[in-house]
């Protein structure tokens, strides 16, 4: 088995911008947000992706998880002795192959209960085909019970015996605090049995205490569940603390890759991104 779980080969993505100048003249301009990008994600490691705003980081995530298709290039995913291109697959198929994702703005189900948030994330989708749950009523009940147990044990594992999530399991997720919503988003990923997880700024906008909790959870993903983590991060302290590898993205390309110390010490990165 190759040691890289994901190989991104010369991916390109462009958009057309419609611009009106001061005189009211219209113009269409094509620009590349991802420009011939190559990157390998090492297996069972934590790789951070850093870079300025508009560098194309989230676009890259969108391409990997199938929400956008690139103009050209290929992405090879390798898990459990299978090696395949995931370009052109629908997002749900990519998830089913074992690539989970957490978005920048959480995307938890605010109006659904905390528990339903977890149950809907289960890797097994039995009963979700209409009428199946009515026809196989007993089996459905057993599986639902198993799902609830699974969610309960994940909560216990991550947040301890008396955690607010299990207590508030029947309340809508929007009743949780902002930090807790983020943690729920992370906990949800444990329902899915993923091999690779993409995290888009998991620590953005939450307090240091929650950041610590998030770091512990991400580490346990890698160490206990053998998951590979690929994350976008702006907090350099988190990158240095957490990541095994770090890649720097600028103008649609990866311009530096290595250990976090190396990359953050890199002259170009310091000058163009960190501003020191």
């Amino acid at each position, binding site marked *: 088995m190759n040691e890289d779980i994901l190989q991104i080969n010369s991916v390109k993505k462009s958009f057309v911008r419609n611009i009106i100048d001061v005189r009211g003249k219209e113009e269409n301009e094509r620009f590349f947000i991802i420009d011939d990008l190559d990157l390998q994600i090492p297996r069972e490691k934590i790789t951070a992706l850093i870079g300025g705003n508009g560098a194309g980081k989230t676009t890259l995530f969108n391409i990997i998880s199938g929400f956008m298709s690139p103009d050209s290039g290929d992405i090879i995913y390798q898990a459990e002795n299978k090696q395949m291109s995931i370009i052109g697959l629908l997002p*749900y198929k990519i*998830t*089913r192959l074992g690539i989970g994702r957490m978005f920048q703005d959480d*995307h938890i189900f605010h*109006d659904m209960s905390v528990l339903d948030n977890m149950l809907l994330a289960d*890797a097994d989708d039995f*009963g979700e*085909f209409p009428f199946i749950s009515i026809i196989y009523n007993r089996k459905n009940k057993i599986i639902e019970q198993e799902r609830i147990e699974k969610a309960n044990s994940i909560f216990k594992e991550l947040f301890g015996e008396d955690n607010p999530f299990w207590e508030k399991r029947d309340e809508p997720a929007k009743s949780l605090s902002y930090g807790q919503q983020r943690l729920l988003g992370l906990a949800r990923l444990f329902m899915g049995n993923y091999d690779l997880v993409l995290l888009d700024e998991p620590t953005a906008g939450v307090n240091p205490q929650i950041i610590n909790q998030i770091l512990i959870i991400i580490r346990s993903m890698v160490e206990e569940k053998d998951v590979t983590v690929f994350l976008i991060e702006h907090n350099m302290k988190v990158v240095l603390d957490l990541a095994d590898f770090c890649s720097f993205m600028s103008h649609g390309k990866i311009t530096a890759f290595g250990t976090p110390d190396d990359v953050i010490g890199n002259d170009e990165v310091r000058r163009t991104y960190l501003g020191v």
Partner: protein
Amino acid sequence: MNYIFHIIIIINIYIILTVSTNLLVGMANLISLAQAAFYGFGAYLGVLALMILKLPMIPTIFFVMFFTALLSLIIAFPSLRLKGDYFILATLGFQLIVFTVLYNWISVTRGPYGIPGIPAPKLIGIIPVSGIIPFLVLSSILAGFVIFIFYKLVHSPFGRVLKGLRDDEIAVKSLGRNVTNYKILTFAISSAFIGIAGFIYASYVTYIDPTSFNLDEAIFILAAVLIGGTGNIKGPVVGAIFVVILPELLRFVGFPSSIAANLRQIVYGLALIILMRYRPQGIAGEYKLQ
């Protein structure tokens, strides 16, 4: 007394229409303006089964459900690839195409002349169901059945996916659920049950013509759901009762029927405007339209 029974039968038909439509609007957040087309499919397919194939009642119901669902897929597959406004527009387009075909394909549907003399459906192949009391029983059973099925669906893992869908579609995709499939299934299920309403209507009234299934009717069905409320079972039922009883009330108050027809439409329109502003979940619903 017969008058009251008649009203209840019509309410039952509308309950089937609104509860089924609610699965689309209130659960999957899909606003469809093609509901009257499926209603029409159900009616015309029912006529086909009763008059030409001479099927007994229960096979007729299954026949209607199956083929209405199948025909709805012709609409669902292309439309569901579209987002937001474009989806609504596509359903609107299909509604108009279906109406035009029903209206103009005279050799098959008799077009504007309509189809009179629809025979009574026969229970177990022999006992004809006709007259007001049998239809009261039949429509009540079917409406109850539809409410039961939809209650079960909403409270199943399938219902959970739909709730997820209306809350955050992107999240559902990212959790490995095939959103398009779920929407297509929802569309087909909703249409299949709407087909039942068409069948009851056709066999109860014993005459159909395309004007019962035009865009105005599609808007009317949607309005009934939204006035009653979406997201639960109670809302659509309240909506059905409201829209059927209101014109009767207006008549009791003594408005001449020429004005009453317009007046009730004005009440529906105002109800929509006011509810959308102050109570987007409708009178008795729980889901705020998004």
